[in-house]
């Protein structure tokens, strides 16, 4: 288990060092905006805020409401592409 944890940590470190993580993040953001994920989520937010009242909105409320829905709303194509890129990265740095 430690090995796994170590390995994951090592991989993450590699991701950050090479800058791949940043690139993946940007790619994901662009794709989500393109597919309309952001607008959908925004509409949902508005409803939540209107229910709760504008002044009583907190970050925690928002986070709890949105992340679950957001994760579900991501289209499959975006998910697959991102996973593909991650696997490629892992394959490149397998022996490293």
């Amino acid at each position, binding site marked *: 288990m430690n090995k*796994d944890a170590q390995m*994951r940590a090592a*991989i*993450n470190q590699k991701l950050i060092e090479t800058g791949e*993580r940043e690139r993946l993040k940007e790619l994901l953001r662009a794709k989500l905006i393109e597919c309309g994920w952001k607008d959908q989520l925004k509409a949902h*937010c508005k409803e939540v805020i209107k229910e709760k009242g504008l002044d009583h909105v907190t*970050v925690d409320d928002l986070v709890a409401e949105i992340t679950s829905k957001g994760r579900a709303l991501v289209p499959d194509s975006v998910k697959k592409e991102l*996973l593909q890129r991650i696997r490629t990265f892992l394959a490149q740095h397998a022996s490293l």
Partner: protein
Amino acid sequence: MKMEEMSLSGLDNSKLEAIAQEIYTDLVEDSCLGFCFEVHRAVKCGYFFLDDTDPESMKDFEIVDQPGLDIFGQVFNQWKSKECVCPNCSRSIAASRFAPHLEKCLGMGRNSSRIANRRIANSNNMNKSESDQEDNDDINDNDWSYGSEKKAKKRKSDKNPNSPRRSKSLKHKNGFSVCTSASYTLPLLFSSSGELSNSDPFKYNSSSGISYEALGPEELRSLLTTQCGVISEHTKKMCTRSLRCPQHTDEQRRAVRVYFLGPSAILPEVESSLDNDSFDMTDSQSLISRLQWDGSSDLSPSDSGSSKTSENQGWGLGTNSSESRKTKKKKSHLSLVGTASSLGSNKKKKPKPPAPPTPSIYDDIN
């Protein structure tokens, strides 16, 4: 921690996949969090709901999707059939024709002024009105164009009437083909060859640049040795083409030379003047006899005082075109000396006599 110790290749694919999934999830959650922070900030700053419009306006600007209307709810071709009343003539005009009609009706715009001017011009031409003002106005209005025409005409008249081109065109019109110094390729007429200028003696113009009066007999002789010299009946100019110019026959040339230089003046050959063949003494006697015969047959009533024996001797020996081919070379020597100097002096019209050696040859012959 070195990655070399932990080689990923040793892991199962499932584990790799699990790792990939974890990384993906992390990324997605990052994005969601980022979005949440944006929204929260917008809410707290108060600009979250700014891009929303109230429902009433939303209804007003709703997209229309009915047949016959565009998305704004407007009817197509609504104004085609409508008619407007012209404020000027109080007529009811179709909307699409209204603007051009108004332009003409009010007399403004480019076309209407043009038409008006044309009408005025036409009416002036037809009426011959005594109102000079109008005519002057027209002239003044079109001054730029009329003036240029006048100037153009003046310029044309100022052209040199003595230019060879001009003379050529005149001669063409008259129907009498005259030689000029231009190229031989001109399709000038041969029909006029029968007409000779013998009937019109002593009427020579200087328009071709060859003024008979200005030339002395020596110059004339030199000219005639190199040029056709036939005088055009219409323009009274000597032909400046070569001795073989196709517009005039040798008869004409001989006539001119006899005319100028006396009965014994003979047409020289152009080509022969360039040859340098040796002279044969024995043949010269026969030549001379033949020449005398030729000269006598060409007697014409001429008063030319330029006919002198020395000149006749000094003149290059030419023959008729029929005989020229055979005896050309033998006479060339005689004519060469005579014409060489004259050729040189011909175009400059120097008042110099032909070269002295010429008479000496004749002296030997005689």
